């Protein structure tokens, strides 16, 4: 609880509109995060608190840095040589940019679903079993079978693929591939799930399934979802953060952001005046 108090003062220190602070324990805390791609300043002085077991939506016009910040949370930006991150990001009060931290271990606890489905060119089964196998989460074949089945069920794909688990994951349709990637991400039971526009390639039915899944997952996981669909943000998230040109303009409870935004840019964006 003392931590929350500290958070509130820090947030207030930034000159952005103040909304009610998140309820419950904070899972991810970012302070003065800056990201540079070479000389390009892609994220500027970003502060945010992301509460545990809830869904947070990142919205904003294209190129404003949503994906960039998302990739900071599991340090995927490490794979981009020109990318430089400063500031502090803590998960469970542990600095994830601490040099002594094991990145591989960190990523094992953070699932990620990419904007474009990227199933491995392996069988459907092997795609889902990939994480459990490399992290030794299951000892026997039947344990892995069970994980594969439950993950595919959660992702709403089981009924469609249960008879063709040995077929290649790349042979599925785009929407099925995306749900396969979701199943792959949740197979290792991560604490945090990062989703970068997971529904941009999906039809309305598949989208509904994914949203349903997000709703179910949020009781056990902390979920961050980037989306271009205002309706989707309103439907699935508890809190929403609006990004614009690399700054986090406004962040607060989703219903408040969508009904009574305090910043003009947020208002313009959600009423469709730009972006």
């Amino acid at each position, binding site marked *: 609880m003392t931590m929350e108090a500290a958070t509130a003062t820090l947030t207030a220190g930034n000159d952005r509109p103040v909304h009610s602070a998140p309820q419950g324990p904070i899972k991810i805390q970012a302070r003065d995060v800056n990201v540079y791609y070479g000389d390009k300043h892609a994220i500027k002085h970003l502060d945010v608190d992301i509460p545990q077991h809830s869904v947070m939506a990142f919205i904003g016009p294209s190129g404003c840095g949503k994906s960039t910040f998302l990739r900071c949370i599991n340090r995927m930006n490490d794979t981009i040589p020109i990318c430089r991150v400063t500031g502090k990001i803590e998960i469970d009060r542990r600095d994830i940019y601490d040099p002594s931290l094991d990145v*591989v271990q960190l990523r094992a606890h953070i699932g990620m679903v990419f904007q474009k489905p990227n199933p491995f060119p392996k069988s459907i089964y092997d795609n889902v079993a990939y994480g459990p196998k490399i992290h030794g989460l299951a000892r026997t074949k039947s344990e892995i079978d069970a994980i594969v089945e439950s993950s595919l069920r959660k992702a709403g794909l089981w009924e469609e693929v249960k008879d063709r688990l040995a077929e290649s994951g790349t042979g599925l349709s785009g929407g099925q591939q995306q749900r396969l990637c979701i199943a792959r991400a949740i197979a290792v039971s991560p604490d945090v799930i990062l989703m970068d526009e997971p529904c941009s390639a999906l039809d309305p039915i598949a989208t509904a399934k994914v949203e349903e899944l997000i709703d179910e997952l949020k009781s056990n996981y902390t979920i961050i979802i980037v989306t271009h669909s205002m309706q989707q943000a309103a439907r699935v998230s508890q809190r929403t953060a609006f990004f614009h040109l690399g700054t986090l303009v406004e962040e607060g409870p989703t219903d408040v952001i969508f009904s009574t935004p305090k910043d003009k840019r947020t208002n313009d964006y959600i009423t469709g005046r730009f972006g």
Partner: protein
Amino acid sequence: MVTIYLTVFAILALTGFFAGHRRAIAVAGGNTRALHSLPTYHGMYTLATVVIPMLIVLLVGFPLVNMLAGQSAISHFPADLQADALKRAATMRDIVNLAGGRSMASVTGELQRAAASYSNVLNIGNWIVVGLGLLAGVGAIFLATGRISLTFRARNNFEKFVLAVLIACSAVAILTTIGIVASVVLETYRFFFDPAIKGKPGISEFLFGLDWNPQAAMRAEQGNIQTAYGFVPLLVGTLLITLIAMAVAVPIGLLSAIYLSEYAGPRVRAFAKPALEILAGIPTVVLGFFAALVIAPSIKGFGESIGLSVASESALAAGLVMGMMIIPFISSLSDDVINAVPQSLRDGSYAMGATKSETMKLVILPAALPGIVSAVILAFSRAVGETMIVVMAAGLAANLTFNPLAAVTTITVQIKTILVGDQEFDSAKTLAAFALGFVLFFVTLILNYIALRVVQKYREQYD
């Protein structure tokens, strides 16, 4: 003559282009937007119409004239000379020499008349060909410019010409392949079945015989040395050396490709990649004497120091150096295919908490496997076909052995040995080279086919 023709050809082609271009602008009254195609396309179309008939006249006309001239010249000689291929060819040479103004020792009246008629026919014929070409070219210009109108689809017609050129080029490549294969097959057939060839082996003797000694025929008067065309020692020698080479090159090449593509920083890469490619550029002769003068003696010295008997030319020396030769093939091609694996697959794996080597082993290599296998096949074919290194480092002795420390020989080395120097093309010994070539070709074909099937079966497709 051909020079004159080519000059006319070039002039007419250029004229055609400008004529078409001008004509199109004239037809449009200066307003080129009114044309279906740009004036340049009308020019190119006219040029194409000139090139095709003139090329045909060139390629058919001159050889035809040559043939006719030869025929008219040889008809001055008696029929029995004309029937004998050898004498006929010798006489033809004399005629051509005489007609070309080269002085000769003894010139008969017959020969003189033949030479005169030869130059006569040649001269008239060539001028006719030039005339025909000129006619065809000019005619084509008029025909093409006549067709140009506002709606004429010069662009689409030129496209057809481009297509024809592309097809012609691939046809050349394919026909060459067919021609080579056909000639090898034909000579191989003669080697086994032509009754005029003496001292040839039966098919099973060739395929399963354990002795290879084609030279013995020349030393027949020396007595007891038997000619033998047993293919097995050569096959074993080839496979032995190739396998040693692959055992060196595949792991080193593949691992260095992995290092270069996934682990090395840009600076190391900028230096290491060209360095590897320089290795690919070293002529095999140089590698060969490196093998013979450096590697083979060191192997011999080392082997003898631990009590092994090592031949001064050994399969091991040749195989090691051949392996070095093909490392760049494998590493460079594998590096390319590994780089072609989409970054999104790597991201997916890293985001699952996989390490670099797990990602490499479980995602990237399987995805790159088809490319890597074809790199290995390519390297294998290079190794099987390599001659120079083996000649210099492994020797000529056709020993049937699996011992890498003994001297062996390979199929290609024997082909080279048989065909070096003057040869008549209807002795069993010479034809044996074709039979070897055929078997070599057949073996690589089967290997390629098997590898292709393996790749199809196990490929993990990404898109």
